């Protein structure tokens, strides 16, 4: 069935259709509406039509952690946040480290998923950081990249070998830079964490690791993506490395763009994250990094948990927040704050993301591309409460909040999904 969506403003940075006012969808693809006869016409009522967002770091929790979330529940939540593609982390239970695991994720996604799911798998068997995974077979099975997640390599030497092997097969790796010596701690080593007497995490934990990782990436020539950078120093290092010509990309989480260490003063466990929220200076440097292109992607790092995981004093709670349901609304929030324009953040979750996961036909509203898009009323608003919450993860700071923007509908491969 073909449709023409009219009376819209297409926002798709870099696309020739950017700024135009109607689009056709036929056979799952964007098409020139003038070529369509007998199409159903949809009045967009002056809403924005944007490419479906691609969220490159999402914990879907399946297999093994279904009490925290399932592919069905979390992809449904994703669509509500304007996300039409998710890259799934491999840190499930067991971890994704075999072609069978990858196929399981893809089959579950096909059977019960509400959006596209791109799997990743571990660089090492069992995530142990010791033995290399069957990287070629994992990519054959459908992985868009290989990662080590929050699990450390057992040594820099093993990391070097993993990167070298991936490089020789043309596989992109995702690295969470961390120095094991400085790892741990539940709050940034600054005024707030010190005052609350929490165990502290020094920014050195990230920057020492990043320095070593950059050397290994340079030495091996692997194509690397650095995930979840949180400090101004990291932004500077990556900017320098890119200027030097290294083939690297990086991402920042939405929470690190929105919040600083100040968010933990009330000990709200929803702000207990794997990478602690850092200073306001760091937050502003991360935003500047997105603006100047040093930071390529914004990710949600969506981490749903069951209620009990957060029902404890702050340091004893599990880490992460459930955020995917508010992604596009939070991008609008950053725009309204005057901190990051919607067009810039949108590129970081559409066209840039499509490049990083090598799905170049996604992430832009363009004739011939798969029709993944979101109809967004920028003047509407979305109110979040526990009753209408879709994610299985109740660990969200969004409850009780009203954010700008309302998703009026989404299309994935031309299939309409009502809000």
């Amino acid at each position, binding site marked *: 069935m073909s449709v023409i969506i009219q009376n819209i403003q297409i926002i798709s940075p870099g696309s020739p259709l950017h700024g135009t006012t109607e689009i056709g969808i036929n056979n799952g693809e964007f098409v020139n509406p003038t070529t369509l006869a007998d199409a159903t016409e949809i009045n967009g009522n002056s809403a924005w039509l944007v490419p479906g967002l691609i969220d490159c770091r999402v914990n879907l929790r399946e297999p093994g952690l279904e009490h925290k979330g399932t592919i069905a529940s979390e992809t449904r939540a994703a669509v509500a946040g304007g996300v039409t593609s998710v890259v799934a982390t491999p840190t499930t239970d067991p971890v994704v480290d075999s072609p069978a695991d990858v196929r399981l994720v893809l089959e579950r996604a096909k059977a019960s998923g509400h959006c596209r799911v791109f799997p990743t798998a571990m660089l090492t068997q069992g995530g142990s950081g010791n033995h290399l995974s069957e990287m070629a077979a994992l990519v054959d099975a459908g992985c868009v990249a290989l990662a080590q997640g929050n699990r450390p390599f057992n040594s820099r030497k093993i990391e070097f070998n993993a990167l070298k092997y991936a490089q020789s097969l043309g596989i992109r790796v995702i690295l969470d830079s961390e120095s094991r010596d400085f790892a741990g701690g539940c709050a940034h080593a600054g*005024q707030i964490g*010190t005052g609350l007497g929490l165990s502290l995490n020094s920014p050195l934990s990230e920057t020492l690791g990043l320095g070593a990782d950059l050397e290994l990436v340079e030495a091996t020539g692997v194509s690397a993506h650095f995930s979840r950078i949180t400090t101004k120093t990291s932004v500077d290092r990556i900017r320098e490395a890119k200027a030097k010509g290294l083939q690297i990309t990086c991402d920042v989480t939405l929470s690190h763009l929105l919040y600083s260490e100040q968010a933990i003063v009330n000990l709200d466990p929803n702000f207990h994250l794997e990478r602690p929220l850092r200073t306001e200076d760091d937050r502003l440097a991360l935003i500047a990094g997105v603006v100047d292109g040093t930071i390529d992607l914004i990710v949600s790092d969506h981490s749903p948990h069951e209620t*009990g995981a957060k029902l*404890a*004093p*702050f*340091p004893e709670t599990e880490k992460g927040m459930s955020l995917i349901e508010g992604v596009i609304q939070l991008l609008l929030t950053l725009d309204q704050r005057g901190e990051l324009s919607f067009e810039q953040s949108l590129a970081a979750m559409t066209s840039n993301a499509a490049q990083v996961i090598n799905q170049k036909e996604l992430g832009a509203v363009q004739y011939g591309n798969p029709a993944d898009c979101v109809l967004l009323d920028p003047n509407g608003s979305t109110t979040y409460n526990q009753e209408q919450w879709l994610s299985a993860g109740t660990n969200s700071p969004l409850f009780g909040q009203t954010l700008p923007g309302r998703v009026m509908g989404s299309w994935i491969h031309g299939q309409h999904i009502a809000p």
Partner: protein
Amino acid sequence: MHGPAALQLTPDGRLKHLLTTEGLPKSLITELLDTAETFLSSQGQPVKKVPLLRGKTVVNLFFENSTRTRTTFDIAAHRLSADVVTLDIRTSSASKGETLFDTLKNLEAMQADLFVVRHSAGGAPFFIADRVTPNIAVINAGDGTHAHPTQALLDLMTIRKHKGDPANLSVAIVGDLKHSRVARSLIHGLRGMGCPDIRAIGPGTLLPSDLGHLGVRTFHAIEDGLKDVDVVVLLRLQKERMSSALLPSEREFFNLYGMTESRLRLAKDNAIVMHPGPINRGVEIANEVADGPQAVILDQVTNGIAIRMAVMAMTLSTQQGSHS
């Protein structure tokens, strides 16, 4: 007021829990110290028994090892005629996998009136105060490296008794401030009382890097830091600071920061020396100072009972006075 500190006050500013000294106004601290003094006899010893909390149940919830603090809370509750139940949680439900939340709900069902909480996680008493049934008071008896407000109050009481209003005093805190809930709470308490000169003395590995915003001056050389202070507070040095490579040895710490008679002479003539106990002789403090006339360490212990009586009486009267 922002932060978890707001949990401990009623909208009209009365104390319903005692969780932290951060943000406690001078008027409330003064009221607590004045009340504590009424529980001391003319000889300076705590009164033996008053019927203020007759029929009330105080539950000591100790998730972390403690002998002294627990004992003084016990004595304080008994002297107020309360019934006291002490739960050593390390050996009970927590080790059977029950969560703190479920433990709390079970104890509430047993009709407690006041919880005294010690926990190794910073913020645990806030978690409890935030979820406890109305009318139950929560007193923080030490949470992680975060806060130990009754210790800070007994320190302020001791300072005020010996040296007068903290608003006119210089106070030096010596040793491991970084891992000390006692130091954090005392700094907030001193600030609340308007103390104009708070100093931190110790090596870089044992001092938090962010003390400046609290108005605390940092000294690495004890000879500079002690100059003309009225009060010297020594902190206990834990053995594990050596194994985690923050210090080379106890001997080196004593040589650099141990309180000796000659160092004490750098402070004002009649300066007092305090220590939350238990003291390590020859590590934080020399024998002659520990046993000398300027040490008020045992007076701190006595005041601790009176302060805990005052905190229990005030929080329970706020919680239950308006409802009974």
